[in-house]
């Protein structure tokens, strides 16, 4: 599914990713853990093509296709979805309008017919009920005045409706209380499947109690410095990142 090899990337001329390599096969969930400033969010933005994140070397492919050559919207149409650490507020655009515009744009790129209005509303009702989101909230401007937890749930709702193949969750647990975390994790787990893969970026182990990873990687100093099974997350929780930061320095 996702292959990243010797990836280098800079922001404002400062190198943040320094030769990062990573393989996430279809059907697997990989966690990326690391200290603040390790490059976790940079990785998510480089993979999704945000302006200002300059790739200076290396490759990233999705099912063999060069991701880095595609625009952000082309990557989205290929199934790449980023759940933002801080979801944006979009004044004046109802959540339903935003999601339908995105869904239809993706469908057009893939040569599919646009979704009909009744079909879309049915999908929105079903998925919002699953995520315990009040449907009327979707008529309001996206994320405007929403609490941190509501914004995160709205990200998962978009994920559920857009049905992406490769999911990147950037600090999805931040700002969530335990009930919201469970709802969000259930939503994410419902999307697990043999044709999908996920990259779960987190600072804390807590989220991984709910979204159980197949592999855990430690990102420090712009590179993956250690990889292991789920037990690695517990070790990091106990012992911290210090020795990896030293190793990366």
């Amino acid at each position, binding site marked *: 599914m996702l292959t990243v090899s010797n990836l280098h990337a800079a922001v404002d001329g400062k190198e943040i990713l320094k030769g990062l390599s990573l393989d996430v096969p279809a059907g697997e969930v990989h966690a990326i853990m690391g200290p603040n400033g390790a490059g976790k969010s940079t990785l998510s933005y480089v993979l*999704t*093509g*945000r*302006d200002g994140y300059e790739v200076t070397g290396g490759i990233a492919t999705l099912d063999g296709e060069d991701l880095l050559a595609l*625009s*952000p*919207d082309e*990557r*989205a*149409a290929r199934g790449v*979805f*980023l759940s*933002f650490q801080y*979801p*944006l*507020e*979009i*004044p*004046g*655009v109802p959540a339903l*309008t*935003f*999601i339908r*515009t*995105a*869904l239809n*744009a*993706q469908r057009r*790129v893939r040569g599919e017919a646009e979704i009909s209005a009744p079909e879309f509303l049915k999908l929105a009702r079903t998925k919002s009920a699953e995520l315990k989101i009040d449907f009327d909230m979707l008529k309001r*401007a996206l994320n405007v005045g929403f609490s941190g937890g509501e914004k995160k749930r709205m990200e998962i709702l*978009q994920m559920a409706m*857009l049905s992406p193949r490769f999911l990147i969750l950037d600090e999805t647990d931040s700002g969530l209380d335990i009930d919201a975390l469970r709802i969000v994790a259930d939503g994410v787990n419902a999307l697990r499947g043999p044709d999908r893969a996920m990259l779960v970026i987190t600072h804390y182990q807590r989220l991984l109690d709910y979204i159980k990873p197949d592999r855990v990687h430690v990102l420090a100093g712009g590179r993956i410095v250690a990889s292991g099974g789920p037990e690695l997350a517990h070790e990091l929780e106990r012992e911290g990142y210090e020795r990896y930061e030293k190793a990366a320095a």
Partner: protein
Amino acid sequence: MSLATAIRDRDVAELPGKRDEDWRWTDLRGLIRALPEPSPAFEGEVGEGVFDAFSADRRVLVNGGDATIEVAGGDAATVALRLVSRGAGAHTSRVTLRIGEGARLRLFETYESDAGSVAQASLTISLAPGAALERIVLTSEDAEAVSVSQAEVLLAPKSRFSQTVMASGARRQRLETHVLHPGGQGAARLDGVYLVAGKRHSDQTTVVTHASVDGVTEQLVKGVVRDQARGVFQGRIVVEEGADRTDARMGHHALILSDRAEVDAKPELEIYADDVACAHGNTVGALDEDALFYGRQRGMPEPEARALLTEAFIGEVIDRIEHDGAREVVRAWAAERLRA
């Protein structure tokens, strides 16, 4: 100094220009070297108007002329008023509107041209106590046209005046509204949108004078400028001595979508009374790049994401239009211009 007298006297020395403080951003004297010939009377068809569906009472002034619209006390009326220029001549129009006590008028007003005409329109609008006017102005001007509209609005106690001016510019375009507000629980709303592209210029100038107590004014003007276009907003609210308990709020916000586009804004509050609630906000900036990336990450191609965000930006003004049908005409007009 006025365009109307300049056209009447065929004298460019009468044109307002950058030495006139209120015209410094819309300099007609520097622009017009010689006034064109007076427009000939027009005999042909002008086609349908965009608001025809909402009114059987249609007034069409082609290449100038006079019109009077009166609504008797207690009546309700809807009028589609079209000020049309055909050809590249010069002309003036004069429209008088009188709205009787407790009467209600919806006025759908359009400015249309097809060549480098020089046109000026004067509107004199008076509202009797308890009268209501919703005025929607929509422009569809030629890129070579010069068009100036000047409205004088006289409110009365407990009258309500709401306007939404939707402008897409011309070679020079100015839509000016002066409101004399006697307070007395009268309310004025002066909203506007300018969407200007190419080398077009659009100026929205408003002056509201609160002459007595208990008046309300609210204003929200939004602009989107692209290419080498220029948007001008001048909003002045004057609260005269003794006009206590006036509540006046003004907002102007513009998006500049290219390096060579320009917005000039002058919001002014002149307050000579003590007990008032007045506020103004003014912002000029670019589209939020983070929001743009958010939309693109979800799959929207960049032009579509931009259009969605700019439509939402001006949507706040359009949503305030009271008449359902007109609101959707205006929304479609804006979408067409933003997606062009």
